[in-house]
């Protein structure tokens, strides 16, 4: 293991990408991802890795360039945020359908309009159905580790799917944190060079992204769905491997002081750290409250979630996005739907909060736990939002 350093998380994400020895980065700068783009440019221009840095004119082109490069067998990375991710939207399901293992860092930021550059999850949630593996990091160390893991997972022959790693904008990208980087030797041992199942080369002609008529399109969709569900096995296996080599373990669903809790708070991303302090405060007062962190969003880790919430009476879902005119936040809605048939399932309280960079403090979590106690039904509710 390399030495411990203090580093901005956006810069650290790019350093982790460099350790993975990528071949191509195609990036269009957007706040709060810009430092990731700039630092990658520095690394490549300084000759620290032998890679192409493509200064594309938009995110639509950055993800398309990544698709092209990945199809030739290259190891490819891009990073974006908010409007950039929305602009990529058209290409995302094409990348997953072609089974191209592109890795993307997404500095989560609210989506326009109105224009807002601060953190929430309204950018990633509309991409939910794109067929990408979708993960959330809670802190800088997880960003470093999960970036490296992502290449191994995405390129694994049993997976071959693109991955988006969510890194909360500003709240995480712009923090300076103490981080441990693995050495290049250690990463090389963990992550061998990409061995594509199929790649474009004149010596071995293939066609990719072919037109699908009605008699085959549905089978292609089913195959993608199956591939995404099946990827969980490999994700868990690779996370175990990582734990063995580096001593830090990763699971699809993680818990904090959840044992014996009658109330559980569920978070995704950087919010988990604040929520864990709230859990400590509440436990001090004798309340049986714990925390569940959803690291993996796609494929959805249903079995792991069931195990994590077993025995709890109230599950409070913290949703940082909203499905307008629908049943609530995307996470709360989905969990309600998945647990619908479970006997003795907990009451699910879905709060929409922390939109557009609105702070959610320790006291806010405590207040939401209090509010959840009083709440009679399971309809979603905005927390801390003025009428």
């Amino acid at each position, binding site marked *: 293991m390399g030495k411990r350093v203090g580093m901005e998380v956006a810069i650290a994400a790019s350093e982790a990408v460099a350790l993975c020895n990528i071949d191509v980065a195609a990036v269009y*700068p957007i706040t709060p991802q810009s430092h990731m783009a700039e630092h990658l*440019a520095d690394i490549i221009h300084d000759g620290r890795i032998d890679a192409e840095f493509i200064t594309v004119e938009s995110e639509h082109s950055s993800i398309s360039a990544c698709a092209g490069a990945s199809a030739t067998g290259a190891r490819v990375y891009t990073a974006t945020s908010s409007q950039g991710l929305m602009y990529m939207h058209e290409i995302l399901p094409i990348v997953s359908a072609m089974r191209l293992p592109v890795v993307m860092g997404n500095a989560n930021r609210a989506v326009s309009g109105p*224009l807002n550059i601060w953190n929430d999850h309204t950018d990633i949630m509309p991409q939910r159905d794109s067929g990408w593996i979708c993960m959330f990091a809670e802190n800088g160390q997880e960003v470093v580790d999960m970036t490296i893991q992502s290449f191994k997972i995405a390129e694994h022959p049993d997976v071959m799917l693109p991955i988006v790693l969510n890194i909360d904008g500003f709240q995480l990208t712009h923090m300076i944190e103490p981080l441990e980087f693995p050495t290049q030797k250690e990463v090389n041992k963990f992550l061998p060079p990409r061995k594509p199942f199929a790649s474009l080369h004149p010596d071995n002609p293939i066609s990719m992204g072919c037109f699908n008529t009605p008699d085959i399109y549905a089978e292609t969709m089913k195959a993608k769905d199956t591939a995404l569900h099946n990827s969980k096995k490999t994700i868990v296996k690779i996370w175990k491997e990582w734990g063995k080599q580096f001593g830090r373990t990763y699971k699809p669903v993680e818990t904090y002081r959840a044992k014996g809790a009658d109330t559980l708070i569920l978070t995704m991303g950087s919010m988990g750290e604040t929520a864990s302090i709230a859990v400590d405060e509440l436990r001090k007062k004798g309340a049986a409250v714990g925390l569940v962190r959803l690291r993996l969003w796609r494929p959805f880790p249903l079995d792991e979630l069931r195990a994590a919430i077993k025995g709890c009476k109230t599950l409070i879902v913290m949703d940082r996005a909203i499905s307008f005119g629908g049943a609530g936040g995307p996470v709360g809605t989905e969990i309600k739907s998945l647990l619908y048939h479970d006997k003795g399932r907990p009451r699910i309280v879905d709060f929409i909060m922390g939109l557009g960079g609105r702070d959610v403090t320790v006291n806010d979590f405590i207040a939401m736990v209090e509010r959840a106690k009083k709440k009679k039904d399971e309809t979603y509710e905005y927390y801390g939002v003025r009428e």
Partner: protein
Amino acid sequence: MKKVFGKPESLKDAIFHYCAGCGHSITHRLIAEVIDEMGIRDIAIGIPPAGCAVLAYNYFDIDMLEAPHGRGCAVATGMKRTLPDKLIFSYQGDGDLAAIGTAETFHAANRGENITVIFINNAVYGMTGGQMAPTTLLGQASTTSPPGRNAILDGYPVRMSEILALLEGTKYIERCAVNTPANIIRTRRAIKKAFQYQMDDVGFTMVEVLSQCPTNWKMTPIDACKWIDEVMALSFPPGVIKDIKGKG
């Protein structure tokens, strides 16, 4: 004492957030002065970009509609088609107009939409922190081209004014600058001409403004003004590029 100078009525009592020496403030003021002078404040509608000028609606005391990044000309087209009697202008930087919004700009120009584009060219992506733009000069260092723009990797500076001038739909395109008093006066004249053409239903007009960005160029404001004349103008020569009514 006779009052000889004042704030244009088309500007609000708000303090510009722009960096010291930035060309946006000057250009904002020129647009407001022209709107006042032409008496078109009640019919002028502006479209600010994504970029440093995203908050332009905090400064102009006219109707404004924020367009998504790069979509200024498409939004302007929709507005002008439904409100042909209004003066519609988009205000766009080089990232907005020449990178992510190239297609919208090109096709609005090609259709000859009767709109005016104020194009701020500062040779970098300003707001996101000085990354390479399509307009970045060869050899110019930016945060995504640290050793300087390299034509082999990054291509050449895109001259949008010359490219758009080739389209039959464009009627008046002039490249100006706001780095010296003389250039500022010329820019003011160009903006007025473009707005007048639009009022006269002539068609698509654009004023490109070479605009100093001392912060991202890492220069003093004075050096940045000099750099426009001494370096930037060699790649982006100021002048009338197309004028179907005049000589250009």
